[in-house]
């Protein structure tokens, strides 16, 4: 699939490209706003930014059907928004407010959205594989033709759950798409120091499935490649392994100074910034002029500011919720 040509990407209709561009902007501005709020101490705990990886989530989830499920790690805001999750509820979750997408109980690492079958937001590295193949299993069980999009980081490749889940999916024809968002680091550890063979796609053969490598900084390539992969998995029920080469601009979380990589390395990636690239494409194609672009950006920034205000003004969860939602049913003397 690496052979996808740039011309083909032009085949994207304007509306679609603009829609994806908007989504990337929503993610970028949401994350920027959350970083600001974190510095203002309105958000606490860990905050893992998706900035730099927008094309992966947006380009991939463009192919998600309503019945499909999506699951990822703690680096979950971008996918939640790419799916159409509400910035208000997302920001309120970060602020720990009852109006949040998890009623303020989950926080930054645990975004969920039932209407989108977004199964979280998992804090344990590799902990999300099971939920993903479980959703794929359910799809076969109910024959609803759904697929699962399982996002995970390069660091998660070293967890046993990656292997067990891939084996189960390949063995049972579970329609799960394993998408490794390889931003080249697991915290401060370069993937070359964590993974014996960093050619992720080459790991597919051991399970008898297909592996694909994608430039995750290029929205067009991501979108086009994932169109094929999603279609094939949906049709054949065979799982797939996709290696998305991407990059995070910020530290692992906001507490990470990022001393393990050079400014030049980061800057080099910022040259390939997916949002920059797409806005250029839009301009060069004459699909969106400077002013239109400015206005769009202003509109989205306002949209995110509204989310911040909403989060700010929302109330904390009432104290009686502390011991609620531990169980769905009430039993015994509990």
């Amino acid at each position, binding site marked *: 699939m690496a052979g996808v040509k740039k011309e083909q990407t032009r085949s994207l209709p304007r509306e679609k490209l603009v829609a994806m561009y908007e989504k990337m902007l929503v993610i970028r501005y949401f994350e920027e706003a959350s970083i600001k709020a974190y510095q203002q101490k309105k958000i606490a705990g860990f905050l893992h930014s998706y900035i730099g990886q927008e094309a992966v989530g947006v380009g991939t989830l463009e192919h998600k059907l309503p019945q499909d*499920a999506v*699951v990822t790690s703690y680096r979950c805001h971008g996918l939640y928004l790419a799916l159409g999750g509400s910035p208000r509820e997302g920001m309120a979750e970060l602020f720990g407010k009852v109006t*949040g*997408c*998890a*009623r*303020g*109980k*989950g926080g930054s690492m*645990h975004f*969920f959205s*039932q209407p989108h*079958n977004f*199964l*979280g*937001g*998992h*804090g*344990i590295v590799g*902990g999300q*594989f*099971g*939920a*993903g*193949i*479980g*959703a*794929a*299993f*359910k*799809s076969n*069980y109910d024959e609803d033709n759904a697929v*699962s999009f399982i996002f995970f980081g390069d660091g998660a490749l070293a967890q*046993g*759950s990656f292997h*067990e*889940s891939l*084996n*189960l999916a390949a*063995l049972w024809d579970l329609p799960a798409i394993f998408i490794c968002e390889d931003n080249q680091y697991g915290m401060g550890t370069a993937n070359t120091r964590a993974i014996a063979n960093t050619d992720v796609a080459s790991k597919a053969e051991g399970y008898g499935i297909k592996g694909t490598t994608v430039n995750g900084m290029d929205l067009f390539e991501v979108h086009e490649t994932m169109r094929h992969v999603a279609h094939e998995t949906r049709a054949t029920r065979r799982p797939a392994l996709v290696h998305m080469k991407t990059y995070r601009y910020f530290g692992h979380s906001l507490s990470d100074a990022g001393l393990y990589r050079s400014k030049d390395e980061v800057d080099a990636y910022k040259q390939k910034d997916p949002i920059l690239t797409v806005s250029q494409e839009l301009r060069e194609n004459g699909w969106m002029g400077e002013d239109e672009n400015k206005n769009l950006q202003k509109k989205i920034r306002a949209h995110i500011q509204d989310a911040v205000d909403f989060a700010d003004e929302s109330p904390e969860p009432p104290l009686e919720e502390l011991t*609620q*939602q*531990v*169980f*769905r*049913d009430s*039993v*015994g*003397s*509990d």
Partner: protein
Amino acid sequence: MAVVEMREALNQALKEEMTRDEKVFILGEEVAEYNGAYKVTKGLLDHFGPKRVIDTPISESGFTGLAVGAAMMGLRPVVEYMSFNFSLVAMDQIISNASKMLYMSGGLYHIPIVFRGPNGAGPRVSSQHSHNMESVYAHFPGIHVLSPSCPADAKGMLKAAIRCNDPVVFLENELNYGLKEEIPDGDYLIPIGKGDIKRAGNDVTIIAWSRMMTLAKQAAAELEKEGISAELLDPRTLKPLDMPLIAESVKKTNRVVIVEEGHFFSGVGAQIADSIYTQMFDYLDAPIARVAQSENPMPYAANLEAATLPSVAKIVQAVRQVTYRS
């Protein structure tokens, strides 16, 4: 009232609930074609087919995680661990995901899963195959922990567990699968959180569950001869505990012996004792005595294995102690 083995009672519960609800399925090692390592799932593959009775690879973490995802999407998995020792490799999926999901999703995703299989020591299976896991799973919020001591309870409790919308750890015992007793006919449930008095008595309350209740019954018979009338209380649900029932019994007997097969330190028995002391301090005429495994891994040698486990003699001795007969 039919007389059936524990494994048959469990089998009936599975069969009835799978018949009642299309969303219920069972997966685990050797549960299908092999009819279950201990034959608890016997005949289920023939009856329900491979879609709902599923043999898994030896991937406890993987298929436990799969069950969590399936549950989030609306199915009701029953996960069989060939033994609960093997749940140790799946611990993270049970504790970090199954038991936390409803809460950390703000109430969006409930997890109706029953994790079941034999718990505790099998015969002569040594150090790595003899763990009692009840206190570990009971320690964390978000899971109910059940452990039946007889076929009748096993069926009604498993049916209730399968109908529960939250994670249930259901602890069976290999040495109990052959236990043969009467069970009620047809469809019945034993609610989660309700204990049972297996034998009424006045002088001491012996609290025991799973296989330990069998020993407690023998101990009660011996004590009878000594003129000690023992009340046998089976909590059945280890978490949440049926404290009202326990309180009632303790207020009557004023003396308590707690018997668990597992280890002593922070065992479920420690919590039961702590709760009794806290709520019924003034009713106790003697400190509570606990009978549990000695402080060492399970040895293979026959004499050592016998010495490390609770026994009728140890229970009788503990009762004598709390009744000051020794």
